[in-house]
């Protein structure tokens, strides 16, 4: 279950709220609730879910040596696989790592087909992750997907955005005062650490 305490049974946020407040409201909705609404055919919930994870999925495909076009295709295939499995992914509390695994498998499949058909894919060679390296990445992104929306958005903007935006740019993007970002960043990272430590503890048990 979602560990941030905003899973099924809690107050539902209206995703179709006024645009001015929609940005804030959307990121407050947990993955489990979004998946549940997708099962009911809620297109807004699907849009939020895709916007939340499309960068992660696309980047996994790029990391596996695909061109932009092929990585875009893999991103679509991965989300379509999520729809195909949407009744089986109930209770998934690490949607990020689930999507990463599917995207990586799809990318491998595409690369294998390219080798068999003897045509080149991207110009960038794939990053060869060891099992341990990949597991650490999936572990981290699985933890991130359990954070609440504002924390996840902030950490992704500060640490995962390849354009390396300044604090001022991030503050504008997230609609927050720049002076609050430093302490919020520390609180969010501390929360992420607790989530990941609890998971490590569960794995040990």
């Amino acid at each position, binding site marked *: 279950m979602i560990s941030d305490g905003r899973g099924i049974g809690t107050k539902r946020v209206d995703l179709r709220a006024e645009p001015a407040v929609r940005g804030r409201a959307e990121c407050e909705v947990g993955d489990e609730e979004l998946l549940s609404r997708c099962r009911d*055919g809620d*297109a807004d919930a699907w849009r939020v879910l895709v916007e939340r994870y499309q960068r992660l999925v696309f980047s996994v495909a790029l990391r596996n040596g695909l061109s932009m076009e092929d990585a875009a295709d893999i991103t*679509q295939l991965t*989300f379509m696989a999520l*729809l195909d499995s949407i009744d089986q992914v109930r209770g998934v509390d690490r949607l990020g790592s689930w999507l990463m695994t599917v995207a990586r498998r799809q990318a491998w499949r595409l690369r294998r087909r390219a080798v068999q058909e003897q045509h080149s894919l991207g110009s960038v060679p794939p990053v060869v992750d060891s099992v341990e390296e990949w597991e650490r990445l999936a572990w981290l992104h699985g933890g991130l997907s359990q954070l609440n929306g504002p924390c996840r958005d902030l950490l992704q903007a500060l*640490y*995962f955005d390849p354009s390396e935006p300044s604090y001022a740019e991030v503050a504008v993007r997230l609609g927050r005062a720049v002076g609050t970002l430093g302490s919020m960043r520390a*609180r969010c990272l501390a929360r992420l650490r607790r989530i990941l430590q609890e998971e490590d503890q569960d794995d040990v048990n």
Partner: protein
Amino acid sequence: MMSTDDEADRGMIFELLLDWLDGRLPEHRAEALEAAVPMAQPETQATVQWLHEFQVLARAMPLYEPPPVVGQHLRRHFRLWSRARAALNQPPAELTATLLFGSRLDLATAGVRGVDDQEHAAHLAYTCDRADLVLDITRNSDGGVRVDGQVLAAEDEEPVFEAMVIGPRGVIRAVDGDELGRFCLPSVPDDATELRVMNGDLINVAALDLRGPEPVV
């Protein structure tokens, strides 16, 4: 149990260490911290190690924005998916088709000799809200009839239909149609009373009357 003060201290230390690793401390404070950390408590060293690993992993895979068309395609795919999913959970709509045109009736009314002149075929056209149905009916030498039909469905309907002829004792024949909605029942007894065409979403029911001394010819 940890006091609130302890927690606050830990929070401040965590933020200080993070500022240091993020390169956000003035040079003199960064140097002082760098010298102090190797001699710090194990807990502090573990925090530094964890933060360092987080930064390494974050840098290892930056998150790139896919082209906007990806989101657009996925929104479209979701619309189709949810429509199909909703249809799966609903029984098909059963609609009764109304006879619009029957060549035997219309020709007789108009005083024309009849379908004998048209290679022993009768033409029937039915309609309902979601599809039209046209049939060509020809008398076979064995006394039965051949039914060639086509369902002309609305654009958003699945075009492939199954056609089923019903008689007094139940289903007589059933065939699958093609992608243009066409189907053929080569031999149907003339006591058939009903034709049903169905595609999973829609059942279109048309009444048949193939009997009589010269049923359709």
